[in-house]
C-alpha cells in the first residue's frame, strides 16, 4: 500500500468515497470531498478552498523546506483541493510549486492560477511564459492581472490567449481593500471570468459593492487574505470558540473564519496559505459539513466584532 504512487492512491480514494464499504474494508480513512461552487462563466465546479503561496512557498533553494511544501501540496490534493494561486511577485514560490508538482505528480484536475505582474504590457507574454515553465505545466487555467498593474495593456493579451486556448479563464486581482472603484469599473466593462479580492470576518467592505456586482455580472470570486496573513487567526486564538460553532461543524477558528467567507453566495473559493500539513487539512475541512446561513453569518461577524 505504501508503494502505491500517491497520484494513483488519490484517484483510488476518490473512487472509494463512493464506495465506503470497500474503503473501510481496506482500512483507509474515508475521504469527505470538499464542497464546490460553479464558475459562472463556464459552470465548471471548483472546491471552495484553494491554496495560496505568498510568503509560505517562497523558500528559495532550501531543499528541506521545498520538500515540506511538497507535502503541503500532497495533503491539499489528497483532501480534494485543486486551485493553487501564485504570482511572479512571490519570489521563488512558482518554482517551489513546480518542484512540488514534479515531486508528487501533477494531478489531472489541478487548477493553476497565476498572475501577470509587470508594468510593460509588451513584456507580459514573456513573463507568463517564464511563469509557466517554473510551474512545469502545459498551460495556466487562470491568469490574473496582479493588483491591476497595467491592466489596460494586459487584458487584451489575456483575452487573445484565452481565445487561442492558451488559457481557460481571465481575471484581475486586488487586496487590502485597494482600488475598488477601478475593480468595479473593469468588472462592469470587461468580459472577465474571475476577480480576486480580500474578504474576511473583519475586512468586509466588498460586501457593499464588489460581491453583489460579481453575482450580477456572473464573475467568479477568489478570496485572498482570509486570515489577514495569519494575524486574524492569532487574535482569534486568544479566545475560545463559541459553543454554537459546532452547529456549523467548525472545530477551529481557522474553519470558523473560512466558513464565514465561503458561505457568501458570491464567493467561489478562498485561498488560505500555509506551511503546514495539519493546517491545510484543517482548512480543507472548512469546505465540508454544514455551512452557515445568512442569520448565522451575521451572528459570526457580530461575535468576532465584540472580541
Amino acid at each position: 500500500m505504501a508503494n502505491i504512487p500517491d497520484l494513483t492512491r488519490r484517484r483510488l480514494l476518490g473512487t472509494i468515497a463512493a464506495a465506503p464499504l470497500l474503503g473501510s474494508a481496506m482500512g483507509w480513512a474515508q475521504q469527505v470531498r470538499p464542497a464546490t461552487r460553479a464558475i459562472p462563466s463556464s459552470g465548471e465546479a471548483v472546491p471552495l478552498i484553494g491554496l495560496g503561496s505568498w510568503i509560505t512557498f517562497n523558500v528559495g533553494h532550501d531543499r528541506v523546506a521545498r520538500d515540506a511544501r511538497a507535502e503541503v501540496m500532497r495533503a491539499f490534493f489528497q483532501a480534494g483541493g485543486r486551485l493553487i494561486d501564485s504570482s511572479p511577485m512571490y519570489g521563488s514560490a512558482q518554482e517551489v510549486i513546480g518542484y512540488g508538482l514534479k515531486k508528487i505528480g501533477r494531478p489531472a484536475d489541478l487548477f493553476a492560477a497565476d498572475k501577470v505582474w509587470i508594468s510593460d504590457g509588451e513584456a507580459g507574454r514573456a513573463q507568463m511564459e517564464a511563469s509557466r515553465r517554473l510551474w512545469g505545466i502545459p498551460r495556466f487555467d487562470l491568469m490574473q492581472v496582479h493588483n491591476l498593474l497595467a491592466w489596460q495593456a494586459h487584458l487584451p493579451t489575456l483575452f487573445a490567449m484565452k481565445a487561442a486556448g492558451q488559457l481557460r479563464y481571465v481575471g484581475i486581482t486586488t487586496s487590502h481593500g485597494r482600488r475598488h472603484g477601478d475593480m468595479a469599473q473593469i468588472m462592469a466593462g470587461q468580459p472577465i471570468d474571475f476577480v480576486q479580492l480580500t474578504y474576511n470576518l473583519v475586512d468586509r467592505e466588498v460586501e457593499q459593492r464588489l460581491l453583489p456586482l460579481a453575482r450580477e455580472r456572473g464573475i467568479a470570486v477568489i478570496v485572498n487574505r482570509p486570515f489577514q496573513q495569519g494575524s486574524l487567526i492569532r487574535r482569534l486564538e486568544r479566545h475560545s470558540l463559541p459553543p454554537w460553532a459546532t452547529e456549523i461543524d467548525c472545530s477551529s477558528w481557522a474553519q470558523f473564519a473560512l466558513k464565514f467567507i465561503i458561505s457568501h453566495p458570491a464567493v467561489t473559493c478562498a485561498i488560505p496559505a500555509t506551511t503546514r500539513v495539519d493546517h491545510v487539512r484543517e482548512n480543507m475541512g472548512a469546505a465540508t459539513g454544514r455551512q452557515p446561513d445568512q442569520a448565522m453569518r451575521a451572528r459570526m461577524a457580530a461575535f468576532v466584532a465584540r472580541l
Partner: protein
Amino acid sequence: MSEWWTYGLRDLLMFSAQTYYRLFELYNRDLWPSQLLALVLGVAVLALWRRGGERAGRAIALILAVCWLWIAWGFHWQRYASINLAAGYFALAFVVQALLLVWLGVLRGRLTPVPATRLQQRAGLGLLLFALLVFPLIGPLLGRSWTQAEVFGMAPDPTALATLGVLLFAGGRPAWGLFPIPVAWCLLSGATLWAMESPDFAVAPLAALLALVLAAGGALRRARAGRSIG
C-alpha cells in the same frame, strides 16, 4: 507594484523569518570553514589598526573591499536573491561600496587610522570588536540556532558595522563617501528584521546611527579646533 507606498512595511516583506534565518544556516553550512578565514581577516583588521600608519590603512581598506565584494556575490546574488526580489539591487550597492573602498581607501589612503577624538577611537574599536565577536552571538542568545550565526566578512550586517567602526577610527578627515551604503544597509536590515518581528531589529540601525553621530561630532570638533588655531 502599484501604490506600493500605501502598503505597510510588513505587507512588503515577502519571506518568513524562518526562511530568512535558514538562508544563513545553509550559507554557513555550505561554506564552512570559510568562517574561520573571515575571522582571520577580522583579526587582521584589528592588528593593522594597532600597527597604524598609511600602509595599514590601505591594507584594511583592501580587506573590507574584498568582504563587500564577496557578500555582493556570495550572499546577495547567489542566495538572498532567491527569496527577495530586491536583492539584486543590494548586490549592486555592495559592489559600489567595494569600489569606493578601493578608490578612497586603497588608492587615496583615506582609511589611515588617526582617530579624531578619544571617544571616536574607543567607539570605533568597540564597534569593530562588537561586529567581530558579539554580533554573531546575538541570534544564538535570542534562541536562534548557532548555525545561523551572522559573521563578519560573510554576512552583510556585521560587515557593515565593522566598516563603520573602521571609518570612525580613520576619522582624521572622515571619508564621507564610505558612510551612506553601510548606514543605509543597517537601516534597511533593521526594517526587515522589524517586519519579521525579530527582537534584535534595533541593533544594527542604532549602532550605525551612533557611528554617524560620532563621526559628525568628531568632524565638527576638528573643524572648530582648526578654526581656533588658524
